[in-house]
């Protein structure tokens, strides 16, 4: 047994691949947070007055709030005055096309495996690349425009489609929803905006790629997706950050609005820098993600593969307001070394005949702590609501922890709520069996973990499922030797 644990130890020790820093001159605000900083950000982005007011209101509210202490994570007090709230790669002019984008920036994304140049030729995925606080480039804008699909950086959307932004901003996640969403509302710098008009099935995957580059900087992006009646979109976000000794704060907000018969698939491959083997550095990922199934028969599906971040605090949720609406949450969360994750979902059943499905697969290795926290709430008028939850935990070694905190609140007798949970361990037996078939331990762990997470990985769009599988293998590399 002891032998086996040592083996597991070794496999889970691997290096973060995206830890380099690009040498890009950036322009940033001074450290600290006050109304002047917010005015500075708003002015930098040439925002209309109403948005500045909205930010200030959020900021004033934030000051009255306290950081949540209930998650099952531990970290030193964050000094919010010690963070830079705005950093932007310096570009002389706003690029009108990719040819005008700083080559160093393009190279950065190239290194990440996201070739923006290539994107011009490839079809299938449109990308919005966000570095530090601002959007660098969005591909395929014209092609999408022909269908009436709006896919742009948030700042551009504020300039070009102010009424849409004004209508939906904060409609799903109110500015004062929680501590981190209020902070984001005050200082968010950029992000992606996506609008799918009525009856349009978006023909390509839309994807946003987030990169933190500058030091001591927080990243606060905001994503807003609006799917009008009978529309469909599949959306993917990816993220990485350099290796740094200090912790960096990432507090994003994602809002999804789905009208009648609309369907939104939101997939995340989260690979923020997790800190080193001793738990030094890494991203604090405090994110609020919520979707509103506003119309009847609408559907929102969250799929997440969480491998990065020192601390993850994230509960992509669905408010099932429309009758017959469907919410889904598929998650694989892998923690290694000293990572801590407290993640799960909330399914709020308001409409009649609403359905939700939760499949959560946790994998803990090293000294990490991995918690699933989920709420299933069935409101009074939600006749015939159905929920199925499955929460599985896989442990590697004997120094990590897996926790499950399911909350179920039912106010309607016709509801059916099911919860299943399992905990298992990658056993010496499984490893030896694979070894005996000529498979080395590292490949064996990847095989076993991918098998375990299969149900979730299958939900990812094809192109990204392969990436996610590789990422799982890399994350657990070195945890067995």
């Amino acid at each position, binding site marked *: 047994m002891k032998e086996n644990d040592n083996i597991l130890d070794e496999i889970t020790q691997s290096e973060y691949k995206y830890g380099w820093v690009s040498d890009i001159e950036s322009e940033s605000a001074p450290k600290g947070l006050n109304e002047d900083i917010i005015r500075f950000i708003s002015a930098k982005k040439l925002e209309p007055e109403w948005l500045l007011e909205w930010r200030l209101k959020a900021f004033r509210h934030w000051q009255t709030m306290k950081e949540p202490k209930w998650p099952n994570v531990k970290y030193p007090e964050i000094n919010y005055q010690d963070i830079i709230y705005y950093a932007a790669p310096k570009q002389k002019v706003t690029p009108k096309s990719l040819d005008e984008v700083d080559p160093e920036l393009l190279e950065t994304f190239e290194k990440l495996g996201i070739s923006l140049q290539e994107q011009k030729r490839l079809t299938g995925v449109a990308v919005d690349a966000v570095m530090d606080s601002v959007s660098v480039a969005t591909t395929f804008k014209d092609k999408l425009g022909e269908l009436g699909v709006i896919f742009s950086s948030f700042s551009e959307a504020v300039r070009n489609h102010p009424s849409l932004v004004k209508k939906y901003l904060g409609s799903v996640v109110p500015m004062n929803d929680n501590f981190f969403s209020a902070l984001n509302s005050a200082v968010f710098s950029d992000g992606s905006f996506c609008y799918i008009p009525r009856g349009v099935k978006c023909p390509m995957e839309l994807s946003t790629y987030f990169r933190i580059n500058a030091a001591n900087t927080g990243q606060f992006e905001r994503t807003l997706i609006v799917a009008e009646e009978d529309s469909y979109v599949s959306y993917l976000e990816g993220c990485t950050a350099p290796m740094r000794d200090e912790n960096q704060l990432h507090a994003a907000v994602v809002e999804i609005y789905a009208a009648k018969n609309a369907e939104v698939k939101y997939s995340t491959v989260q690979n923020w820098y997790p800190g080193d083997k001793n738990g030094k550095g890494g991203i604090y990922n405090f994110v609020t993600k919520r979707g509103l199934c506003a119309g009847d028969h609408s559907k929102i599906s969250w799929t997440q593969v969480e491998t990065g971040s020192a601390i993850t605090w994230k509960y992509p949720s669905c408010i099932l307001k429309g009758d017959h609406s469907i919410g889904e949450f598929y998650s694989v969360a892998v923690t290694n070394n000293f990572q801590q994750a407290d993640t799960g979902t909330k399914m709020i059943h308001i409409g009649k005949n609403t359905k939700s499905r939760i499949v959560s697969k946790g994998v803990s290795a090293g000294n990490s702590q991995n918690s699933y926290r989920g709420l299933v709430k069935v409101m009074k008028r939600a006749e015939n609501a159905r929920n199925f939850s499955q929460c599985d935990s896989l442990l590697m070694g004997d120094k990590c922890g897996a926790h499950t905190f399911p909350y179920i609140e039912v106010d309607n007798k016709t509801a059916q709520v099911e919860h299943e949970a399992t905990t298992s361990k990658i056993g010496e037996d499984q490893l030896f069996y*694979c070894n*005996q078939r*000529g*498979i080395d331990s590292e490949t064996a762990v990847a095989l076993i973990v991918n098998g375990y997470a299969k149900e979730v990985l299958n939900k990812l769009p094809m192109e990204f499922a392969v990436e996610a599988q590789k990422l799982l293998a890399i994350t657990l590399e070195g945890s067995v030797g």
Partner: protein
Amino acid sequence: MLKIKNLRASIEDNEILKGITLEVNPGEVHAIMGPNGSGKSTFASVLAGREEFEVTQGEIWFDGKNLLELDPEERAREGIFLAFQYPVEIPGVSTTNFLKTSLNQIREYRGLAPLDAVSFISHIKDRMKLVEIDQSLMSRALNEGFSGGEKKRNEIFQMAVLEPRLAILDETDSGLDIDALKIVANGVNKLKTKDNAVILVTHYQRLLNYIIPDHVHVLYQGKIVKSGSKDLALDLEEKGYDWIKEEFNATTV
């Protein structure tokens, strides 16, 4: 092909194998028999390189290589296959995917290019026929929810796919009904060539009606106390193990 000299092995300071010497040549079938707790399964595990057993003394040579210096996966890639007494379940991983990974890692070790999907599938299909295994087992997760018999047949199927030089069958017959036993034995016989060898670890003589051994060895208290031809197995079937124990105890007193 396989030369074992005075092999001693223990688990947590408890000595299980107390000096085993055995030589297996290409084309041979050896049966290792013995009462419960005599060290049969330990012997199979030690050959495959299971780390919880510590080899305290002795040598194992396989095709001129010192087996004790090789990891379990290297031994497998050298051509040693263990059909497990209790095959392990790996949820979510299909037998096909598992075997593809396995076969390609073995090929890589031997300097061969990985099999492409088409040749792999045709190889699998061919082997499925050979050991009469059902196609539906292929797409299911490895051993997950398989019956005892299905698991054992799956082991033989894997053996057919990987074509080992030396196959060690650890109580593959236990838990099989007579029909399944015949299918398994049939598979093993079909896979037999003049270049490979089989070690059958079994408690009962039953299997040896279908797979005829060249040599039979009786393991008792961690030692091979008697070796003989296939007739020895018949004697054991008839008389049980008591006379072996008595004989052994008489000589050691």
